[in-house]
């Protein structure tokens, strides 16, 4: 027996070592979602390798910066001049884009869309790679100590790069989008076709799950769809470089990544993204009709009729109540602050004559005759429809004020339109009083109006 063991000692040890590794591999495959089982080994290996890389990158960057910032300054003036011109052009472009973005936000708000914002990023430097063409991974010099964690998006100014696969204390592993185990939700910019971006064994990036009857052309831009819950929607991925027929009724769409994945230097890790209602403060509760009305040439206001006024009061009162119930109006809002929104609301009210519509369009903070309203809108209202609300509506529809109620509401409202009733207390505009408490909305004004 001993002679057999001695004779096949090398083979037995080989089989034993291989068996142990196969066993370890099998455990990892079974727990494919759990990276913690090998974390310690990886930390040791990374800790042994990355300090050298970090040091070398530091020296390399220092030398490069010294050369480029202090010695090699040829053509800097000309470049500076070009950049200034470029900035001017981009400012003009920015004005146009701001308009488009504002319009998009308004429309998104109307549809209650939610949008994602990249609210915080961490800049990191690429210090190394896996070194294998079978595993497309890079190492960055930021880790858990800098707030990085698993599954964070990594991007550059050009486009997306990958995601954080593992975060160690001082470094992180980034899985590039051209690795075969990577997957990113993507969408074609023009046709809005959705697919899944995957890497291949030879480092190419393919867009999968696009049906063969769809039209995809080389040059089409590919963006992130946000469906993977890692990358925010709308980030640039790359362009279609080749389209071919794949298997199972799907197209074979090859993508040229926008970011140069083979020569990455600095990257941004998206550590925080916010998802919020796409409602700008100004456009809250604005209707499409209001937006259109702002853009259309103004129509002279019709003279107010008693019916319209009565209806308007009811509508406004309803709005005030609803606004109070929703809690959108801050109780302590100064009454003399002009509200640009109110202008739009009032403007659309008068030509249509429909106070019901106006009630829906009045944003929080607009004064209603019932007293739960900011004065900015009163100011605008008085400018557009003189005397409509106060001379006819407000005195009629104002509910009896309670003892605990601040008197400024009615007083300010009346003062704004310039028809102060005799029984209202004189209120100075310099001392604005808070609006009515939101927890006690006024009853509908129409009910209380003495007809």
């Amino acid at each position: 027996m001993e002679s057999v063991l001695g004779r096949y000692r090398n083979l037995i040890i080989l089989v034993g070592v291989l068996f142990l590794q196969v066993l370890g591999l099998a455990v990892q495959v079974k727990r494919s979602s759990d990276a913690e089982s090998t974390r310690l080994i990886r930390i040791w290996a990374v800790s042994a390798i990355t300090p050298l890389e970090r040091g070398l990158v530091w020296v390399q960057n220092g030398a490069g910066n010294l050369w480029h910032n202090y010695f090699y300054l040829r053509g800097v003036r000309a470049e500076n001049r070009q950049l200034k011109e470029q900035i001017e052009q981009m400012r003009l472009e920015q004005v146009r884009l701001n308009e488009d973005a504002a319009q998009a936000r308004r429309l998104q708000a109307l549809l209650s869309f939610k949008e994602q914002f990249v609210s915080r990023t961490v800049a990191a430097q690429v210090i190394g790679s896996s070194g294998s063409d079978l595993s497309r991974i890079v190492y960055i010099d930021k880790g858990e100590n800098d707030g990085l964690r698993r599954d964070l998006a990594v991007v550059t100014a050009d486009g997306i790069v990958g995601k954080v696969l593992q975060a160690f204390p001082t470094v992180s592993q980034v899985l590039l989008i051209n690795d075969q185990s990577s997957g990113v939700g993507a969408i074609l910019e023009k046709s809005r076709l959705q697919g899944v971006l995957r890497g291949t064994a030879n480092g190419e990036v393919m867009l999968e799950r696009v049906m063969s009857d769809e039209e995809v052309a080389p040059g089409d831009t590919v963006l992130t769809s946000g469906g993977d819950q890692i990358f925010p929607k709308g980030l640039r991925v790359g362009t279609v470089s080749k389209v071919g027929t794949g298997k199972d009724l799907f197209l074979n769409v090859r993508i040229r990544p926008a970011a140069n994945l083979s020569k990455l230097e600095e990257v941004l890790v998206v550590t925080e993204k916010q998802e919020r209602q796409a409602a700008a403060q100004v456009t809250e509760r604005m209707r499409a009709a209001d937006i259109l009305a702002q853009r259309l040439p103004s129509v002279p206001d019709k003279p107010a009729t008693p019916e319209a006024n009565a209806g308007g009061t009811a509508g406004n009162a309803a709005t005030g109540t609803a606004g109070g119930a929703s809690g959108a109006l801050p109780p302590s809002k100064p009454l003399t602050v002009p509200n640009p929104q109110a202008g739009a609301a009032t403007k659309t009210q008068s030509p249509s004559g429909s106070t019901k519509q106006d009630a829906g369009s009045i944003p929080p903070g607009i004064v209603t005759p019932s007293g739960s309203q900011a004065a900015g809108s009163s100011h605008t209202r008085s400018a557009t429809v003189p005397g409509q609300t106060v001379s006819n509506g407000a005195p009629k529809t104002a509910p009896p004020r309670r003892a605990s109620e601040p008197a400024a509401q009615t007083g300010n409202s009346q003062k704004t339109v310039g028809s102060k009733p005799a029984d209202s207390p004189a209120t100075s505009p310099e001392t604005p009083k808070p609006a009515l408490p939101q927890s006690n909305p006024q009853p509908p004004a129409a009910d209380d109006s003495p007809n």
Partner: protein
Amino acid sequence: MQITYTSGEQVEVYRFSLPVTVGVPLLALFLQAFVPRRFPFFSYFDLPLLVTIFFAMARRNPISGLLTGAVIGLVQDSIGGHAIGLYGIAKTVVGFGASSLGVKLDVENAGARLLVTLGFYLIHGVVYFAVARGMVNMTLNWSWGHSILAGLANALLGVVLYFLLDKFKQRT
């Protein structure tokens, strides 16, 4: 059983100092991780494999050869993002094979080293491919043309590298 870095067989065996034994594989792993960032074509080379083959052939001890291969392979796996053990298994086989071959053949001249390195590069690729496909279910495409070309490139680099590493050899 005592595992040493030397062996006494018929052919000449060598040993290495501890700094070389630890430092050279670490340097190879470091270069393999660092250089492709600047020169992407460098990822076609497999410096840890070349170092494994060199140490295995020089020591001519199958056990130390397979252990060297296993350790280097496992560290290489740890740096990469895939399951740990793929490179480990492949390099264990290569380390064992190279040292077993070194016992029987004289692999000191450049021609023999070129052929041996090419052969073991292919064996390494086949084992990696088989394990990755069979156990980890990775999608890999095997290309003979690509493998042979990469093997030749590695073999050429290996010949140069072995020449440099020969300086660290110590006779037993």
